[in-house]
């Protein structure tokens, strides 16, 4: 490479820079195309009627009421299960145990679980929650499955947040005679809270779009009622989208696009909250 002429070397350096620049911004362009395409296809179906009607064989009458409510129920219960357990695991691993064999084992476990395909969690939910616990295709079965799926994400982000709390805070509390739990509860946890919350929101926004595990546990694709309790059948937004997108008719594809717009808006809202929390805590720390 070095033996080439200087002109060539400069030219190559320039060309490589341009190449990387173009590739990097292509990703942004593709995102733009995706959003533009979905909006163009779906926007004409997106109105109040679409939000308040149940799905239907007739595109003009179809809506996402049951899917929207199903997703809300599902996410509520998922948060209820996964947040305490996730934060608890994170606290145990970061604050309450030394680096011993067992904690390394749990560590390895969590990082491997984070890489297990979501459809495998669906199999787990199908066998354990649907069949053994006899929960059928209920909101409860779905949210338990989802909880296991996002648990590694919550644990990992909780641990990162806890690790970023300076040790001096812990030492100061210990020096005043606080126990480990008092230190953790009154000082470390509040300091780590913005990071933990951000992690939870990001984990839930992953769960909101997950389809495969719900398909596996047998969540229904056509539901003309809203769930009234944790034992009711349900459908969810991504399942409704999947159902519409897999039909051949153009109208249903457009309905899928409208559903995607709603899903993306929900995701956007969740992410903005996460960004806001992060921003506020950064400002406070300055």
């Amino acid at each position, binding site marked *: 490479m070095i033996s080439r002429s200087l002109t060539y*070397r*400069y030219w*190559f*350096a320039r060309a490589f*820079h341009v*190449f*990387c620049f173009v*590739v*990097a*911004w*292509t*990703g*942004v362009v*593709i*995102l733009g195309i995706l959003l533009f*395409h979905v909006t163009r*296809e779906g926007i004409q179906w997106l109105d109040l009627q679409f939000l308040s009607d149940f799905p239907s064989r007739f595109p003009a009458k179809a809506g996402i009421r049951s899917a929207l409510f199903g997703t809300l129920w599902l996410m509520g219960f998922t948060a209820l299960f996964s947040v305490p*357990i*996730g*934060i*608890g695991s994170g*606290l*145990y*691993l970061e604050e*309450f145990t030394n680096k011993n064999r067992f904690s390394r084992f*749990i560590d390895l*476990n969590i990082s*491997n*679980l984070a*890489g297990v*395909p979501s*459809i*495998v*969690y*669906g*199999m*787990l939910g*199908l*066998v354990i929650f649907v069949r053994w616990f006899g929960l059928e295709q209920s909101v409860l079965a779905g949210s338990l499955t989802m909880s*296991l799926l996002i*648990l590694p994400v919550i*644990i990992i982000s909780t641990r990162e947040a806890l690790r970023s709390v300076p040790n001096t805070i812990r030492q100061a509390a210990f020096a005043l005679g606080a126990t*480990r739990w008092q230190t953790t509860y009154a000082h470390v946890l509040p300091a780590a809270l913005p990071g933990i919350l951000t992690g939870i929101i990001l984990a839930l*926004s992953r769960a*909101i*779009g997950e*389809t*495969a595990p719900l398909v*596996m546990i*047998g969540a229904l694709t056509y539901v003309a009622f809203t769930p009234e309790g944790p034992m009711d059948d349900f459908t969810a937004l*991504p399942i409704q*989208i*999947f159902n519409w*997108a897999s039909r051949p008719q153009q109208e249903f*594809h457009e309905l*899928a*696009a409208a559903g995607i717009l709603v899903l*993306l808006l929900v*995701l956007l809202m969740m*992410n903005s909250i996460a960004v806001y929390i992060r921003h506020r805590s950064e400002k406070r720390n300055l």
Partner: protein
Amino acid sequence: MFQRKWAKHWREEGIKAGLFLCATVSVLTTFAIVWILIREAGVFFQEVSVSEFLFGTQWTPLLEPRSFGVLPLVCGTFLIVAGTALIALPAGLATAIYLSEYASSRVRSILKPILEVLAGIPTVVYGYFALSFVTPLLRTVFSDVQIFNAASASIVVGIMVLSMVASLCDDTLRAVPASLRQGAYAVGATPVEVTLGVVIPSSLSGIMAAFVLALSRAIGETMAVTLAAGATPKMTMDPFVGIQTMTAYIVQVSLGDTPAGGIAYQTIFAVSALLFVITLIMNIVSSHLLRKFREVYE
């Protein structure tokens, strides 16, 4: 005073035990996954031999005459993975190089969150995008493209995985000490010579870790390939025809009316077990490579 101290002690121990129980949930999850897959796949392997499953080239478990050779599904999966690799690995690495070596911190702070959005879009959305945008586009460019085809699915999975590759590679490239770059510049290297000759070679194991992890994600990808790649298990290298991946097959069976408990239904556990083993191996390889990288620089 003494009593209060004991109460405090027990409360402390109780809380610790509670948190410990939380931590065991993830261990239990792992064991449950392994145990269920072994048990349920065991039912399947009582009727079909392991070698027939792994090396058979006909996959027709739902039709007579039944045949349980998983290779067509594996082949379909790897066709998707190959397409994904072709798109996501070079593009992801180039993006990472741009982010870490060329972009100013202002550009970085704009570009990185946008790319993270790409990774956060649900996979079912990518499936829809493949079906309603990429496939029609392919069909106008090439003449013999089927409605369901592997190319379209690989393209969207590639886009999805790209930002993951970019983000992980960016982290590794930035972990390479600046002194290495400065040394190369000092002896007169151009920026590209520094990047390709010094930075990339010294972060190779980290980059490989990112690649392996990304491809393992592509193997487990479900909804996009179910929607876009079709449902016809086939051993082919032609990206323009319909195929079926392992994940898409599992979805097909669980959406269909195959009665639970029969041998046809039990196939999904055998396929999941195979899927689990493949992704697990890749994840272990990836974390091993990453550890090797960290040992050098941290």
